[in-house]
C-alpha cells in the first residue's frame, strides 16, 4: 500500500530509508524518522484501537507521550509489550504491532456491545451492581470482570531483554529539548557547566520540529538541529535523546529512563533495552513544554479527531495529512495556526469553528462562530455537526478535526515533592507554584511562556539564574511572539456522550454523576470515575474534568484544585526498575572459602542470607538428605568431621577499653577473661530481650575477636557501632568486621585433635590448649592462623582460621590429614542436628521474644555490672516463675515425628490457643538416639522434666504424645568437649 497521505516533500523523515512494518497483520511502509502513528496515518489508517470500557473505535488524539487512545501491542513472542503508545514508537524496519482490547477484529469488535449498554455502565457501575448476591462475587462477577478488564495482554514469558541502571552527575539538568531547553543548554554549555539535556523524543527540538515558523532566517527545526549539533560538540554537555525524566526525588536526584534499544527490532547483544538513570544534579531547569487540551462535545472521540497541534506535528514534522479535508474547533488563536499550516500543505480546511465572538477572520479559510456539537462516522470521522451562534446548524464534511482548547504547562515535575500549581487566568491553565523541588527553575511553555520568543529568552534566563551567570547569553534568533488569546471553553452545553478522558471512557456526564452522588473532591472524582488514571495519567483529560466539576460545584477551578502529581511521568517498564537484579543476579552471592571444594564433592547448598552454605554432602548411593545428614552426624561424633563456619560474623574489637566495652554489650562478664581464653556471651537488646549469642576470644589485653551468628552478623556489628559511637564515645575501642578476612573451619569429634595436630605447628594437647582456649598460631609450617577450642556440636572441637586466600588449601589439607581418621565434611543440617542434640540455642530460640530466663540463662545476666538490657531484663512482669523455659522434647513413640512449630497442650482437653502451654522451636531426627528430638519452650518447663504432654500441629495434622526432658540430649555433663 502506498503512503497515500504522505506529502511529496517536507518533514523530518528520511525518505531514502524505507521501513516495512505490519499492523494487525497488514503490511505498510514508512520512513526512518516516523513514529508508528505517523506511519499509519501516512497510510490512511485512522482506526488504531478500541477504548477501554465501551470498545469504541479510536485513533490517535495526540502526537506525543500524552497519547491516551492509540495503544498497541508492540512486537511479538516474549517481547510483546501491551499498551505501547503508537505516537512514541519510533518506526523501525519489520516492526510488528497489533491492536488490542478487542474481541474479533479491530473493525468488528464484538465487545462494542458495551457501547450499546452505556446507560448501565456509567461511573460507579461496579460499586452499585455487584453488591449482591454476595456469593456471586468471587465465582461469577470477578472472573467476568477480570476477563473483560485490562488493556492489552502479556506474553507471560520471561522478558528476554536486560535493563541497566546508571548514575550521572551534573551541574545542570535540563528536562526537555524544546526552544527553552535548547536555549538554556546553549547558555550553560558555552559557560562550561556540566550539563545534561534530556528529552523523551528521539529528535530533539520539541515543538520547533512541529511548527512552520522561522527562527531568524532558519526554520525552527533547522535551528534546533544546528543548536543540537553545537551542543554535541561541547565535551561538557551530555545529550540524552530518547530519555524521559520520570521523577524529581529528594536531594537533587532525578530518575530518567533512556530507551537505548526500543527503536531497534531487538537490542544488540549484551546491550540493555533501557537504562534507568539516577541523575544527581545541583540545579535543574524544567523545560518540559505544554500539552494541548481537547474540547468535550458529543462523539468527540472518533478516529480522525485529534488535537490541533497534533495535526500540525503530523503535517510539519512527518509530512503526513491526517486527512485531505480537515476542520478545526478552537477557543484560541492556536487553532488558526493549525488551519494556516495545513492549508499551506494543500489540505482543504472545511472550516475553523471558533467559540469566540472576536475570532480572527481569514481570507484563506472559512471561520465560523459557534460550536461543534456532534460528529458522525462509524470507524472514523466523516461529518461534524455544528451549532452556530446565529442559531443555525451546519454539517461539515471532514475526515479529521483538530481540537484546540488551550495549553496546559507540563507542571508535573514541579509537584513531585508535594508542590501545588497555581492558576493563571490569562492562560486558563495551571502554572508552576512557588514551592518547587530544591534547585529547580522552570522555563518556557512549562512556565506558561507559550510563545517561541518567550521560551527562548526564558531558557537563557533560567540557565543564567541557575548557574549564577552574568552577561547577555547567546544571541537568540528572532521568533514568533504571539500573545495568548483564549476564551476558556471546556465542553459544549447539553452534550451527553462527550469524552473527557478517552483512555478511561469518562464523559462529561460521568463527572456530573460523580458530583450528584457526592464525590466532589477532585481526588474522589478521580477514584469514582477513573478520570486521569492509566497510562496517560490524565495529561489531556484532568484539566477538563476538574473545570467541569468546578462548574457543577459552583467553585472556581483553583478552588477545586488538582490531584497529586506522582512519578513516573510516563509509563515505565518494571524491568527498568529491576535493572540487572533478577534471576540469579537478584542479590549478590557470598561464597565460602571452601565453596569450590564443596562443589567438587557435590554439596547441596542453602542460602543463609547471601551466603551459600553446604547443607549436606551426599555420597553415591544415598537417596535422601536424611541418609547423608545421619551419616555426617554419626561420623563426626564417632571420629571427626569438618564444617566451614566462615559465615559466622567476626568483629575485631581493639582498644584499651575493649574489655569494658564487651562488658557493656554482653550481659555476662568479660572484663576478667584471661588472655588466651574464649567465653560464651549473650547479648541483650535494650529492652532486655535476647538479641544474639556467640563467643569472644581474648587474643591480647586490648584485643578480642567477637563471633556472632551468621544471620545476625550485620545487625550485631551495627549495634556494636551504635554502642561505641553513641552510648560510649569516651571509650577507647575500635571495631572492624573481619568476617570475610578469615577462612574458618570447625573440626569436631573425638579425633579432631589428632587431625589438627598434623596441621598446627604448636602443641595443642589438652594441657597446652584446654577447652575454651584461643591463640594466634601457625599451620603447615608457618602460615599465620588462629585456633579456638570451642564446640557447637558438643564434641571435642576446634575452630581454626587462616587468611581467606588459604581457605581452599586448608580444607583440602584437613581432609588429606584427616583421611586416616575418616574425617567427614558436614553441612549445616548436621550442624543443626548436633546442636539440637547438645541443646544449644540458635536463631530459632533467639527469636526476638525470648529472655535470658526463657533460655535457661537467667543467671548469666550479671548483677555485678551494668550492661545493655540488664536493667530491663528484670522489669516487672517480664520474668515469672511460670513463664516459658527452654526444654527438650522426645516422642513417647520413638517412630513419631516432632515438627518444629508445633504447640504443646495438656494430654487431654481442647486444642486451642487458650490451652497453649508452649511451642517447638527446633526439631530433628537424632541418629545417635534413634528417634526425633526437639527443643522448645514450655511454661515452667524446667520443673516439668519427665512429664508427658501432647504436641499438636493442627496445620499438619500431627498430634503426638511427648515427654519433656532436658535439652541436653547428648553428653549433658560436657565430658566430650573437655576431652
Amino acid at each position, binding site marked *: 500500500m502506498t503512503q497515500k497521505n504522505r506529502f511529496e516533500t517536507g518533514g523530518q523523515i528520511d525518505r531514502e530509508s524505507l521501513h516495512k512494518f505490519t499492523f494487525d497483520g497488514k503490511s505498510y511502509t514508512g520512513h526512518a524518522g516516523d513514529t508508528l502513528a505517523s506511519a499509519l496515518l501516512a497510510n490512511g489508517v485512522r482506526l488504531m484501537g478500541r477504548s477501554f470500557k465501551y470498545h469504541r473505535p479510536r485513533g490517535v488524539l495526540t502526537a506525543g507521550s500524552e497519547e491516551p487512545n492509540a495503544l498497541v501491542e508492540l512486537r511479538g513472542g516474549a517481547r510483546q509489550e501491551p499498551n505501547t503508545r503508537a505516537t512514541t514508537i519510533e518506526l523501525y524496519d519489520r516492526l510488528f504491532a497489533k491492536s488490542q482490547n478487542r474481541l474479533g477484529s479491530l473493525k468488528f469488535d464484538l465487545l462494542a456491545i458495551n457501547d450499546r449498554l452505556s446507560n448501565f455502565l456509567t461511573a460507579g457501575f461496579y460499586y452499585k451492581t455487584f453488591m449482591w448476591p454476595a456469593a456471586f462475587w468471587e465465582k461469577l462477577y470477578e472472573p467476568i470482570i477480570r476477563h473483560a478488564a485490562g488493556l492489552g495482554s502479556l506474553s507471560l514469558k520471561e522478558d528476554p531483554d*536486560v535493563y541497566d541502571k546508571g548514575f550521572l552527575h551534573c551541574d545542570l539538568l535540563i528536562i526537555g529539548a524544546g526552544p527553552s531547553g535548547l536555549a538554556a543548554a546553549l547558555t550553560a554549555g558555552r559557560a562550561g557547566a556540566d550539563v545534561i539535556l534530556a528529552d523523551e523524543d528521539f529528535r530533539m527540538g520539541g515543538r520547533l520540529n512541529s511548527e512552520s515558523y522561522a527562527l531568524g532566517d532558519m526554520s525552527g527545526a533547522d535551528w534546533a538541529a544546528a543548536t543540537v549539533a553545537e551542543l554535541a560538540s561541547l565535551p561538557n554537555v551530555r545529550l540524552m535523546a530518547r530519555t524521559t525524566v520520570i521523577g524529581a526525588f529528594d536531594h537533587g536526584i532525578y530518575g530518567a529512563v533512556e530507551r537505548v534499544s526500543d527503536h531497534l527490532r531487538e537490542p544488540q547483544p549484551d546491550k540493555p533495552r533501557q537504562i534507568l538513570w539516577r541523575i544527581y544534579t545541583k540545579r535543574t531547569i524544567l523545560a518540559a513544554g505544554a500539552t494541548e487540551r481537547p474540547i468535550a462535545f458529543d462523539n468527540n472521540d472518533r478516529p480522525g479527531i485529534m488535537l490541533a497541534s497534533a495535526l500540525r506535528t503530523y503535517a510539519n514534522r512527518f509530512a503526513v495529512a491526517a486527512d485531505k479535508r480537515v476542520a478545526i474547533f478552537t477557543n484560541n488563536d492556536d487553532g488558526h495556526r493549525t488551519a494556516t499550516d495545513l492549508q499551506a500543505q494543500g489540505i482543504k480546511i472545511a472550516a475553523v469553528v471558533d467559540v469566540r465572538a472576536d475570532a480572527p477572520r481569514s481570507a484563506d479559510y472559512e471561520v465560523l462562530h459557534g460550536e461543534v456539537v456532534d460528529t458522525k462516522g462509524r470507524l472514523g470521522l466523516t461529518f461534524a455537526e455544528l451549532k452556530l451562534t446565529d442559531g443555525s446548524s451546519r454539517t461539515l464534511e471532514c475526515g479529521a478535526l483538530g481540537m484546540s482548547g488551550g495549553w496546559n504547562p507540563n507542571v508535573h515535575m514541579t509537584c513531585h515533592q508535594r508542590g501545588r500549581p497555581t492558576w493563571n487566568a490569562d492562560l486558563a491553565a495551571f502554572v508552576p507554584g512557588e514551592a518547587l523541588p530544591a534547585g529547580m527553575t522552570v522555563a518556557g511553555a512549562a512556565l506558561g511562556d507559550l510563545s517561541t520568543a518567550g521560551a527562548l529568552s526564558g531558557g537563557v534566563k533560567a540557565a543564567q539564574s541557575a548557574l549564577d551567570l552574568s552577561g547577555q547569553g547567546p544571541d537568540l534568533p528572532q521568533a514568533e511572539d504571539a500573545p495568548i488569546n483564549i476564551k476558556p471553553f471546556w465542553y459544549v452545553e447539553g452534550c451527553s456522550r462527550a469524552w473527557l478522558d478517552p483512555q478511561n471512557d469518562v464523559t462529561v456526564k460521568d463527572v456530573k454523576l460523580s458530583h450528584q452522588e457526592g464525590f466532589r473532591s477532585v481526588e474522589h472524582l478521580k477514584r469514582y470515575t477513573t478520570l486521569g488514571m492509566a497510562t496517560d495519567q490524565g495529561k489531556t483529560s484532568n484539566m477538563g474534568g476538574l473545570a467541569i466539576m468546578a462548574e457543577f460545584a459552583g467553585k472556581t477551578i483553583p478552588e477545586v484544585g488538582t490531584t497529586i502529581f506522582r512519578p513516573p511521568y510516563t509509563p515505565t517498564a518494571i524491568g527498568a526498575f529491576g535493572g540487572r537484579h533478577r534471576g540469579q543476579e537478584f542479590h549478590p552471592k557470598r561464597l565460602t572459602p571452601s565453596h569450590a571444594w564443596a562443589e567438587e564433592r557435590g554439596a547441596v547448598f542453602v542460602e543463609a542470607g547471601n551466603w551459600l552454605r553446604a547443607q549436606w554432602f551426599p555420597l553415591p548411593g544415598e537417596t535422601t538428605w536424611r541418609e547423608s545428614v545421619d551419616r555426617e552426624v554419626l561420623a563426626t561424633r564417632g571420629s571427626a568431621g569438618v564444617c566451614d563456619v566462615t559465615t559466622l560474623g567476626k568483629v575485631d574489637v581493639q582498644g584499651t*577499653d575493649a574489655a569494658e566495652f564487651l562488658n557493656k554489650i554482653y550481659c555476662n562478664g568479660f572484663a576478667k577473661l584471661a588472655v588466651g581464653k574464649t567465653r560464651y556471651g549473650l547479648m541483650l537488646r535494650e529492652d532486655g530481650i535476647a538479641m544474639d549469642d556467640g563467643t569472644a576470644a581474648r587474643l591480647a589485653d586490648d584485643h578480642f575477636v567477637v563471633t556472632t551468628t551468621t544471620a545476625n552478623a550485620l545487625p550485631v556489628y551495627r549495634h556494636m557501632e551504635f554502642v561505641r559511637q553513641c552510648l560510649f564515645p*569516651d571509650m577507647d575501642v575500635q571495631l572492624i568486621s573481619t568476617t570475610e578476612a578469615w577462612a574458618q573451619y570447625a573440626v569436631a569429634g573425638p579425633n579432631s585433635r589428632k587431625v589438627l595436630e598434623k596441621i598446627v605447628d604448636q602443641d595443642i594437647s589438652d594441657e597446652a590448649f584446654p577447652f575454651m582456649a584461643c591463640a594466634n598460631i*601457625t599451620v603447615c609450617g608457618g602460615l599465620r592462623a588462629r585456633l579456638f577450642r570451642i564446640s557447637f556440636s558438643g564434641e571435642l572441637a576446634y575452630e581454626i582460621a*587462616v*587468611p581467606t586466600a588459604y581457605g581452599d588449601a586448608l580444607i583440602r589439607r584437613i581432609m588429606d590429614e584427616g583421611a586416616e581418621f575418616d574425617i567427614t565434611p558436614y553441612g549445616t543440617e548436621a550442624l543443626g542436628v548436633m546442636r539440637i542434640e547438645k541443646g544449644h540455642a540458635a536463631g530459632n530460640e533467639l527469636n526476638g521474644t525470648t529472655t535470658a530466663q526463657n533460655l535457661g540463662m537467667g543467671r548469666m545476666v550479671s548483677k555485678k555490672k551494668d550492661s545493655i538490657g540488664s536493667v530491663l531484663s528484670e522489669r516487672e512482669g517480664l520474668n515469672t516463675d511460670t513463664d516459658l523455659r527452654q526444654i527438650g522434647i522426645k516422642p513417647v513413640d520413638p517412630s513419631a515425628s516432632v515438627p518444629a512449630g508445633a504447640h504443646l497442650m495438656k494430654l487431654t482437653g481442647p486444642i486451642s490457643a487458650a490451652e497453649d502451654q508452649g511451642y517447638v522451636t527446633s526439631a530433628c531426627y537424632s541418629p545417635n538416639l534413634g528417634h526425633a528430638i526437639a527443643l522448645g519452650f514450655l511454661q515452667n518447663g524446667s520443673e516439668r522434666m519427665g512429664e508427658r504432654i501432647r504436641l499438636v500441629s493442627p496445620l499438619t495434622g500431627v498430634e503426638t504424645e511427648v515427654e519433656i526432658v532436658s535439652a541436653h540430649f547428648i553428653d549433658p555433663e560436657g565430658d566430650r568437649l573437655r576431652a
Partner: protein
Amino acid sequence: MHDLIPSTALGGSTPRTDTFPHVTLSENDGLALASVAARLGREADCHGHLSALLGRVPGPGQAVLRDPEAGFWMGPEQWMIGAPSASQELLAEDLKARFGDSASITEQSGGWVCFDLIGPGMVDVMERLCAAPVRRMQAGDAQRTVIHQLGCFVIRREDPNHLRILGPRASAGTLHHALVTAARATA
C-alpha cells in the same frame, strides 16, 4: 615456610583478566591490606605515623597513592593501608610494630577482592554500576559506594583511565559478574 598455596578471590590459581575493546578488567591478587584505627587520645601520634608512612594523612574521600604503601580514608580516624603482598604479606604485623599502641591494626588482606579497571571506557562502565561520581573524581580520590548491592571502595589512580575497586571477597564472583556485564553493555 608453609606449603599452602593461596587461591585468588575468584578462585583461580592466577588472577583473571578480561579484555574488552574499551577497558581491561584485572583481578589484582597482589595486595596486602590492613586497617588502621587511631586509639582515643592518640590521634596525633597515629597521624604522625601515617604521615611518615604515606607522606600525609588521607582526609575524607582521599587516598595517598604512594609506593610501596598506599592508603585511603575509610571513616573517622580510620584508614586502610595497602602494600604489595609479595613483599609485605605480614603488613599488619609491620604496621603494629610501627604504630605501637597509637592505633588498632587489623589484617584485612583476606577480606577484600581488588579489581583494576583500566581503559578509556572506564567511566562509562562505572556509570552503570555505582553512584560515586567517578567521572568527576580526580587521581587520589577514594569513595565508598555500592556496586550491585555490595559495599565497595573505588579509588582513582594517577592514570586517568584507571580505577581500583575493592569489594567484599566472598562476593568476588558477583562483583566480577557485575563489572563484566557493565563492560559488555558499554563496549
